[in-house]
């Protein structure tokens, strides 16, 4: 059964006024349990509004959202329960930290669930481990940490609620390449260890290609595509027309293919590209060497 399902989901800002704007337009989606999905799209394409529907922060203007097959707005008083089930990490989450110590801040979510002290302690330590925070950091004030570490604390604060679905809105915005790879790597590890569903909103096609299994492309408030990475990136031209470039390395291989070089066009990461090129060179070498000998 799909863990997230939407039916004709539509959301309109400032409905009825001259400033009316459709942010999410008739979205029908089914996301399966255990998938790692990358959500890509332009600024203003409706990504952020869409994901805020999944944990009930935004109420749809029309249409339905189902989590685990249950309509989340069936009982509006129960909406807090959904927020524990679907954890959402906002953009620049480090600005939400407020407690005296990192430990207490991570414990905020679990405390809101109403768990026992032992349970909270276990979850805080587990979440800190997932994002690579040291024991000693837990007793520090979140305000004396570096930007990257603050972000880890904020992500841990959501992971500690043990959500069935984890959604991250641009978790790497404003980080250096090293910090970016580290955080995404940890998210991937978390996904593999917990076997739960993870959604990552990103601007970077490279990141989505490298870490995700599926990609959801939003364009002008609609879902343009929702498919495996291979199938999504085979639509190079449509994506480029939207201003969403496929990974650079994919473009190189597509160009090579267009020039008559026999390469696999489904190359999305630099590592895979290297393998493919080495294979090509080896074949070339064999042919050349063979020809010389003959």
């Amino acid at each position: 059964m799909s863990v997230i399902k939407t039916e004709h989901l539509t959301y309109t800002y400032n409905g009825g006024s001259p400033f009316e704007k459709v942010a999410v337009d008739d979205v029908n989606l089914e996301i399966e349990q255990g998938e790692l999905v990358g959500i890509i799209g332009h600024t203003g394409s409706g990504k952020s509004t869409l994901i805020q529907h999944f944990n009930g922060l935004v109420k749809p203007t029309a249409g339905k959202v189902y989590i685990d097959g249950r309509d989340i707005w069936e009982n509006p008083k129960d909406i807090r329960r959904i927020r524990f089930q679907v954890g959402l990490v906002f953009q620049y989450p480090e600005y939400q930290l407020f407690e005296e110590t990192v430990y207490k801040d991570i414990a905020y979510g679990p405390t809101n669930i109403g768990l026992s002290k032992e349970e909270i302690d276990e979850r805080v330590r587990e979440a800190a481990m997932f994002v690579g925070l040291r024991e000693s950091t837990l007793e520090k004030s979140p305000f004396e940490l570096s930007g990257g570490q603050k972000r880890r604390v904020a992500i841990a604060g959501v992971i500690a609620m043990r959500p069935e679905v984890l959604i991250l809105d641009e978790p790497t915005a404003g980080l250096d390449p090293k910090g970016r790879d580290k955080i995404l790597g940890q998210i991937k590890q978390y996904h593999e260890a917990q076997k739960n569903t993870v959604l990552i909103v990103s601007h970077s096609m490279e990141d989505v290609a490298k870490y995700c299994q599926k990609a959801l492309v939003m364009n002008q408030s609609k879902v343009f595509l929702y498919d495996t990475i291979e199938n999504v990136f085979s639509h190079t031209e449509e994506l480029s027309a939207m201003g969403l470039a496929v990974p650079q390395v994919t473009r190189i291989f597509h160009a090579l293919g267009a020039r008559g070089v026999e390469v696999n066009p489904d190359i999305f990461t630099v590592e895979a590209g290297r393998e493919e090129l080495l294979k090509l060179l080896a074949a070339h070498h064999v042919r050349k060497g063979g020809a010389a000998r003959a």
Partner: protein
Amino acid sequence: MLKDITIGQYYPGKSPIHHMDPRMKIVITFAYIVMLFVAKNAWGFGVGIAFLIAAYLISGVPGKMALKSLKPIIPIVVFTTVLNMFFIDGNPLWQWGFLKITDKGISMAIMMAIRIVCLIAGTSLLTYTTSPIVLTDGLERLMSPLKRIKVPVHELAMMMTIALRFIPTLIEETDKIMNAQKARGADLESGKLLQRVKALIPVLIPLFVSAFRRADELALAMECRCYRGGEGRTRMKQLKMHGRDVVSALVTTVCIAGVIVLNIFIRPIF
């Protein structure tokens, strides 16, 4: 959402009143208030009301907006009217136990109600036709003589401008933080008063932290552009008096003079 609250009540337009010098508009607004309090009979109030209606017609601000500005003061108007009606001595028209309504009471009540309504509608027109930034600019220039007695006029105006500039930013920020904490299970909507106040701590602390951070960044950015206070500072937009400002000043003066003359020649209401 919080974002939907409008800050300031500027109603954009291109009328002569919108284009007037903000200093003149502030001065005329004060003069108008004085006029309302000088008026002592029905004719005087007639002038006051006519002045207001004419100003609204010229400004092109719809009458609906004027009514909107009056909404919050309805309780005050009702309260003063009732008080005046029952507690002013005069010839009783109606009596029941200790409660009585007198002719003087009624006229006083009507007068006070008109005064308050005109006062609010008039000052609202100032804020409807003047954007907050222009308004602080005008205030700064008007108060500049106070610099002689060491009142930091420029600094005050700059503070006001910056505060106005950051209100929408902070509202947006509050919205974001509230959503982020709600996503962590914060319950901001239910519970008793004390619980609700406690639930706001996770919103207020990050908000303060980011407000301080923004202030720091802004100060740095201003210093980078060599800001060093108001001394010797020139402006891109110079305030200038035009024909329309002179005309409106004359009209206002004539109206006030008229009200005073009417006071002398016509018997006051009480």
